[in-house]
């Protein structure tokens, strides 16, 4: 099956998400759609999948112009899409989830009746091929992220899809599982399917793409064959300018490096909901940026919440400059000297119905008077808006009216304001373009040089390896590896992320000692 996108344009309000994009999708070929977040890759593919309809341009399927106005239409044409956010019902079993997505499922789903018939074989055929050991009666909520993604893939394959669109499939996978997926993608292409890989990762492109289409700010920058491109050239095409990692001063202040640790985590245990953390001991020195790597859902969220005092500890204590901040023996408390940039600030860090000014003031509400003086607060907010280029720049606007990226910038600005001992930052640059991410890293490093200890949670190993002074890996709520810069190795860290083995570095020092990076 051949598909041509011709001169596709899509606008959302005043934003042009796709601007005159033309693309050929051929049989047996893997195309990587490469671009930063917000470049318009997903938008383009959602039009092919019928979730959006283009404002201009046309889609040709096997040479005939076709209107794809719904996902059902796309699926009937043999176009399937695996989304970044899984469409799986956690409370239902693997089999139930497959049946939900199956084109013509049997009316009766009695296991007995259905078990021996041909229909269950049909539904489960691809599952058995891709994940032989997986019991179809397992609840999806008990599956790992990688397994869930496989399940999504099986759902799409069950639709007999000839064209597979994968939206950032490796963003949630540890390196080993990503490799397995690349193999799978190559195999599917050899079997004659076309695959569109939406990604912002170079490794994805290098591992399995035949062609690379680079997008930037809604425009198609260039289409290349894999042989004709290098990682460096792709990066510069994708970013547009050369403002790169290199120009951030990532060095630790040598005066600070010799000092004893500011923050000590001693044997932290906590349980909250389905997550738990288990015996986490770490020291972070002044000016040090400690990166926390790991596949999401391995306790990062809970560790951050427990540190800043949102979740009680069941054992252990957090010590700042020799003073106990959190301890299992008393109720958790928040502190004005601890900054917290949580994941998804739009949900976790702002009150959507309140204005930007109020949202900024909320971070230091203890210092506000009974009748707060809003003038200075608004001034502070304007300052943050200006420095972090928050758009729209009206401090009276409700926070809910800002986009996720702009809220992210606002929250980072708010949290890095004023004196801080500890900064806990979870995915502070998620959803931001390269320029804004650069500014945020810059601000984080400036704060660190003023003496703050930084705990930085990220899923982006490249960023962690280029910026962090040390990397600790969380796996199953435990520290499964602690790496100094000379030990930074993608594969080693990846192994620690999957819990394959414990690396040589001492995972958790039994007694507090200054572990200072070189």
């Amino acid at each position: 099956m051949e598909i041509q996108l011709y001169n596709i344009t899509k606008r959302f309000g005043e934003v042009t998400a796709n601007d005159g994009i033309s693309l050929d999708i051929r049989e047996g070929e893997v195309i990587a759609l490469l671009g930063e977040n917000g470049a318009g890759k997903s938008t383009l593919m959602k039009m092919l999948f019928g979730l959006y309809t283009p404002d201009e341009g046309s889609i040709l399927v096997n040479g005939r112009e076709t209107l794809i106005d719904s996902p059902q239409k796309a699926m009937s044409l043999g176009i399937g899409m695996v989304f970044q956010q899984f469409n799986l019902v956690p409370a239902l079993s693997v089999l139930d989830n497959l049946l939900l997505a199956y084109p013509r499922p049997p009316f009766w789903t009695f296991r007995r009746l259905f078990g021996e018939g041909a229909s269950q074989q049909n539904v489960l055929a691809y599952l058995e091929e891709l994940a032989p050991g997986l019991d179809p009666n397992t609840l999806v909520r008990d599956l790992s992220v990688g397994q869930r993604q496989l399940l999504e893939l099986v759902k799409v394959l069950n639709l007999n899809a000839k064209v597979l669109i994968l939206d950032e499939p490796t963003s949630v996978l540890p390196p080993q599982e990503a490799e397995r997926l690349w193999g799978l993608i190559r195999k599917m292409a050899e079997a004659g399917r076309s695959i569109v890989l939406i990604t912002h990762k170079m490794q994805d492109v290098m591992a399995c793409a035949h062609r690379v289409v680079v997008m930037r700010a809604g425009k198609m920058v260039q289409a290349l064959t894999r042989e004709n491109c290098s990682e460096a050239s792709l990066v510069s095409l994708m970013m547009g300018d050369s403002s790169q990692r290199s120009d951030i001063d990532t060095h630790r202040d040598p005066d600070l490096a010799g000092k004893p640790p500011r923050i000590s985590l001693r044997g932290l245990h906590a349980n909250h909901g389905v997550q738990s953390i288990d015996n986490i001991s770490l020291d972070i020195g002044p000016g040090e940026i400690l990166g926390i790597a790991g596949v999401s859902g391995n306790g990062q969220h809970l560790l951050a919440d427990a540190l800043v005092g949102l979740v009680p500890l069941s054992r252990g204590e957090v010590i700042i400059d020799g003073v106990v901040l959190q301890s299992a023996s008393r109720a958790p408390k928040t502190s004005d000297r601890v900054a917290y940039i949580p994941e998804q600030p739009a949900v976790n860090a702002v009150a959507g119905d309140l204005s930007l000014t109020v949202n900024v003031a909320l971070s230091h509400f203890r210092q506000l008077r009974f009748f707060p003086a809003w003038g200075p607060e608004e001034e502070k907010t304007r300052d943050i808006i200006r420095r972090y280029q928050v758009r729209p720049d009206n401090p009276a606007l409700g926070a809910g009216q800002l986009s996720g990226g702009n809220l992210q910038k606002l929250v980072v600005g708010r949290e890095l304001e004023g004196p801080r001992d500890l900064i806990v930052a979870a995915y502070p640059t998620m959803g931001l373009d390269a320029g804004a991410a650069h500014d945020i890293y810059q601000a984080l490093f400036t704060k660190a040089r003023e003496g703050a200890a930084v705990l930085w949670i990220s899923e982006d190993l490249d960023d962690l390896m280029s910026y962090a002074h040390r990397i600790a890996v969380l796996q199953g709520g435990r520290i499964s590896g602690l790496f100094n810069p000379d030990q930074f190795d993608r594969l080693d860290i990846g192994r620690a992320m999957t819990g394959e083995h414990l690396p040589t570095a001492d995972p958790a020092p039994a007694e507090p000692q200054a572990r200072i990076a070189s």
Partner: protein
Amino acid sequence: MESFVTELLTLLFAALRSATPVLAVVLGEAMTQRSGVINLGVEGQMLLGAMTGFAVASISGDPWLGVLAACGAGIALSMVHAILVLGCRANQIASGVAVLILGGGLSAYYGIPFVGNKIDTLGNLNHTFVSDIPLLGQFLGPITPTVLITLLAIPAISIFLFRTRTGLRWRSTGESQEITRNLGHSPVPYQLAAIAFGGLMSGFAGAALAVDYTANWVEGMTAGRGLVAVGLVIVARWNPWYALPAALLFGASEALNLKLQSWGVPISPYLLATLPYLIPLSVLMLSYRGLRASGGGMPAGLRVVFQSAR
């Protein structure tokens, strides 16, 4: 010893009879909530069903016609909720309360001429083969048709919900409308059916109360049974099988209340009459403790009830 067993069985079967209206509502509301819609109006639907069922039975002289009319009235009133919630995207809590009050008002007004009327009842299993069964016959005899129908609804609902394609989509709608929509199924028909089924069951429950159990119509006669049923849905963890013990809990506390009064316990009957509400409430609190992490089986889609529509 034998008298104790007899006493206990009498209490159990009395509990079953008085629990039947509540059980029907729990089953209906559990199905409604399984689709991601909460309907607090079941009490109003029950009242309108009870009044309509009694009125039709009294005019036509056929109690079965009354039961059918009650089901129809329940569905009709539930459609108000459906229009407000599915059509106008109104807040489900507000819409449910509106239906509750509407049902109470309508049934009170149109029920006036029928207060004190006499109707033929649906009969019971006495004088059938059942009453000849040794030992159990005396307990099974007083069982009425609405009790049997409600009990039979449990396996029927459970097979439908857990063993059919439609039931699977029904459940997925309740877990996440968004995911269901992404999978290419519109949640609206399922939710409409779910609200209508809840209406049918609460209308039927009204008939079970007015036409069958008491053979009488009094304004506000459901006395909070519908609202208790909404709470019992949580105790039953949205599972039709657990609905039976949950509803029996209500029935047993009501039977206990009557027993205690007849024994002349020196507690005000007004206070004793709160037992059927206090006991399920305590069980609700106890059973909900420690379940919070897993949500106690709550359909995840119910969370949208408390989110404002954007």
